[in-house]
């Protein structure tokens, strides 16, 4: 049953990777995320968590089933249209941070704003605000190579949220961090997603990380099942 108010609605999603080692990655996945919801997807390595994120982001196309994001069926859009959806209304946080090494922290955060055409002054103000919100205002002029892992991930969170996306996709954002830093980063991520009134999907191995979300799903070879709900 599709909820017309959902940010994201996935129905009977199937994805197989071809080639000599053909492999069924996702089978009959059903999944729904409402505005303001922050959910976790757990699962073993290689079960298809990142594949699911790529499909949700429109970076890949399903074999069958539908992915509806804010009322639009992603599979019916061409690559450019899906890119625009991602640009305007989604944000990404990666395990390996993936900051652009040759840009300062400030300019890294301003990239999504530049892509959606925000004026430089306004963009600068929004980036400042975001840096303040994630607690790294003093690092605006630093380059990524000068930062610690926790600091880099805060920058990545700021970049993912600065343009107020409707959906944030976080792929193992604490995988490279120590426990204390991971806790701080997860707190910042959860706060910011809620503050923006958007939705968030956290893909993680960590039960502790998953516990910071509203609902936890587990992805297995049999499909996606709800494990806990708060």
């Amino acid at each position: 049953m599709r909820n017309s108010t959902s940010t994201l609605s996935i129905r009977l999603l199937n994805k197989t990777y071809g080639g000599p080692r053909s492999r069924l990655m996702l089978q009959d996945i059903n999944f729904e995320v409402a505005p303001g919801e922050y959910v976790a997807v757990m699962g073993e390595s290689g079960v298809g968590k990142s594949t699911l994120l790529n499909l949700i982001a429109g970076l890949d196309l399903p074999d069958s089933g539908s992915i509806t994001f804010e009322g639009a069926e992603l599979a019916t859009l061409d690559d450019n249209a899906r890119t625009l959806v991602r640009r305007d209304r989604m944000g990404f946080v990666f395990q390996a941070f993936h900051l652009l090494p040759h840009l300062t922290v400030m300019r890294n955060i301003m990239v999504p704003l530049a892509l959606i055409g925000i004026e430089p002054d306004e963009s600068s103000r929004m980036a400042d605000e975001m840096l303040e919100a994630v607690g790294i205002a003093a690092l605006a002029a630093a380059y990524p190579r000068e930062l610690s892992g926790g600091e880099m991930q805060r920058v990545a969170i700021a970049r993912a949220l600065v343009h107020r996306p409707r959906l944030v996709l976080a792929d193992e954002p604490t995988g490279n961090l120590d426990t204390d830093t991971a806790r701080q980063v997860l707190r910042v991520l959860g706060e910011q997603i809620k503050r923006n009134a958007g939705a968030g999907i956290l893909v993680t191995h960590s039960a502790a990380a998953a516990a910071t979300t509203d609902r936890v799903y587990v992805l297995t070879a049999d499909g996606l099942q709800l494990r806990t709900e708060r």
Partner: protein
Amino acid sequence: MAIASRGFAVIAVSAGALRENSGRFVLAVLGVAFGVALGVSVHLVNASALNEFKLAIQSLSGAADLVIRVPRAGFDESVYPQIARLPQVEAASPAIEGEAQIAGRTDTLTIIGLDPFRASQVQPEFFAATENPVTDLFDPDALLLSHSAAAWLGLKTGDTLRINVGTSGIDLKVAGLLSPGAYRQRIAVMDIASAQWRLQRLGRINRLDLRLRPGTDVESFRRQLAAFLPAGAEAVTPGAEAERGASLSRSYRLNLDMLALVALFTGAFLVFSTQVLSVLRRRSQFALLRVLGMTRPALTRTLVAEGALIGILGSTLGVAFGCALAALVLGHFGADLGAGYFQGVSPELHLAPAALAVFWLLGTAFSTVGAALPAIEAGRRAPALAIRAGDEEEGLKKPGTTWTGAGLIVSGLALTPAPPIDGLPVLGYAAIALILLGTILLMPWLATVFLQRLPAWRFPPAMLAVAQLQATPRQVAISIDAIVTSFSLMVAMLIMVGSFRQSLDAWLVQMLPADLYVRAARVGETGFFTAEQQVVIAATPGVERAQFVRSQRLLLAPGQPAITLLARSIDAATANRILPLVGSSSIPQAGAPPPAWISEATADLFQLGVGDEVRLPIGARPTSFTVAGVWRDYARQTGAIVIDRELYMRITGDRLANEAALWLVAGSAFEQVEQALRERLGAAADFEITTTREIRLRSLTVFDRTFAVTYGLEVIAVLIGLFGVSVSFSAQVLARRREFGVLRHLGMMRREIGAMLGCEGIVVSALGVGFGLGLGWLISLILVHVINRQSFHWSVDMHVPWLVLAALAAAIVAAASITAVVSGRRAMSNNVVSAVREDW
């Protein structure tokens, strides 16, 4: 065991890298191969031609120990018995030699008149090798052709060859062929008496070959002989004569060799940039290997070996390709690379193993050194730092090249006023090399300065492109250098050749003031107008005024090539209107020798200036003249002197003329005057009538043909430069695949990433082209004022061909930008999205 394991790790690193970067590896190998091939082919073509040229001269001299020679006019044959009777002389062979114009063609054939019996004493192989009886030569119309001459003319025994003498054609019978292989050059041999008669040189010889008695000191006899020789004659050894002939083309050959070296250098720079970028991209891998226990020297050796491998493969391929190219050029186009120095020589490919080895070593050494610099830096970098993202630029910061670069440029500039060495502009070329190398080393600083001044763009791809470039000026400098290296030399050549062409055109306008020019022979030395014919020409209806010129070759000093004496109507007061004088001029004071005007080449070669006295071997004894001015002469590289013809006739009694300049009565038609001239001089007369416009066009066509090879070499250097840009961009794009993946995640479209790369390509190539233009202009000044002047003794007015340069610059920017986008497309054709899953 440990050594074997380390060796395996080293090989695995290189093999993996080469496999992963096979495209760039192939491009780098091809870059070196092209450079080496060009060097080898140009050198082989020149060396083969030169070798043949020297062999030809030596074969003509046979076993002679000395050759007495005067230019065309020759000396009285009575000198021959005087010299032949000298006790040191064992055998003497007189000869008359000349370049005869072949009727109906614009080519000349060397005709040598010999006394067969005398010649057989000095050149025994000559008649031993002849297929027909020597007695055939005694027919006054008979000549023997070398095989190459027969093939070139399409003649066989029994056929007739028509040549022009004076303004008439004479028919000579091909009595036979000289033995194949004995004389590979295009020559014809006649009996000396027949030749003197048929070439209208009765009683004259212009060559005397001497074989000396055993034990005679050739050098001291050569000095003694000077007392017996008539004015303008000199005795030289056959070897020295061959060297003098070869020296005429020496500057041109050096010029081509230098251009080929430029292509080789550009290829080596390609290896350098490939290796720098490859090493940068693999820094984290190397850091990991260092962490795992690979020693610093082992890592450095591995990377140097990669460059050496590229060099070895490229050089081997280049040597093979260069030999094939040289064989192809010699087979299809002959040894004449456009400049006309080796016309009439039909060389076979002369493989010189030492030269091939030098080019092979140069290609390999350049590549190895190119790889060594980044390898040493990679070995030095601390693994903990190298393993971090964004360390690439830090790695390049270390080598402090700015001051070294500035120092090299200053040193290069300081060398420009230096004089030639052994007549060659060696220090001028060194200055160019230093300035070029200095600019390459200065480029990181220049790139930083210019990139920091780029405005901030609002268009996101441009904004990201500029940010990327500003953050990586040293990596950008490598791409800029690839363009600057080749483009600056192209610009320099274009400015130099453009300036030269423009100056030549202006020179032709001043040198050809008349409406029509009538020449007894367009080429060769056997054509002339008699005094009677001159009167007829001047009185031809439609001709308002006629001016005649007599030219002949003179030897001014032993060891120097002959200069051209031009006798024409001229006086000191109006010389500047007739000749393109450069610098100051003067009118000789009363009582001083009469005036002569020397060309720039004469001034340089004989160290003469305005006011100096020069002795010309004309008439019965040498006559002194005062240098009244120096003029620009693009026609005669070995020098020319102009004197007044009235004076010349008084001194020599020679009233012949080779050429007439005709001013037509207003309204006269060229065709009518030509018809009238032909009617009045007789139907059998063979002479050439051309308009000023035709001569101008013909001269410019010859000029363009001469520089065609130069342009060809430069275009190849630019193509190798573009290879460099392609290698550089594709390496950077591959290194940035994860960056593109992230940008795709952040919502950047493929075309926007393409636009970003296009912007980077435009900025990099625009900077490369900008610096290339500046550097090219500087190098062109050295080419024009140092290299050209010292090589050919020609001054040239600077003329920058802005339109051509602008079009070329736009083409390079477009090509480099397209290269950048194509490289990006290729990199993005793989799944860049998945690249974000890899660690940095």
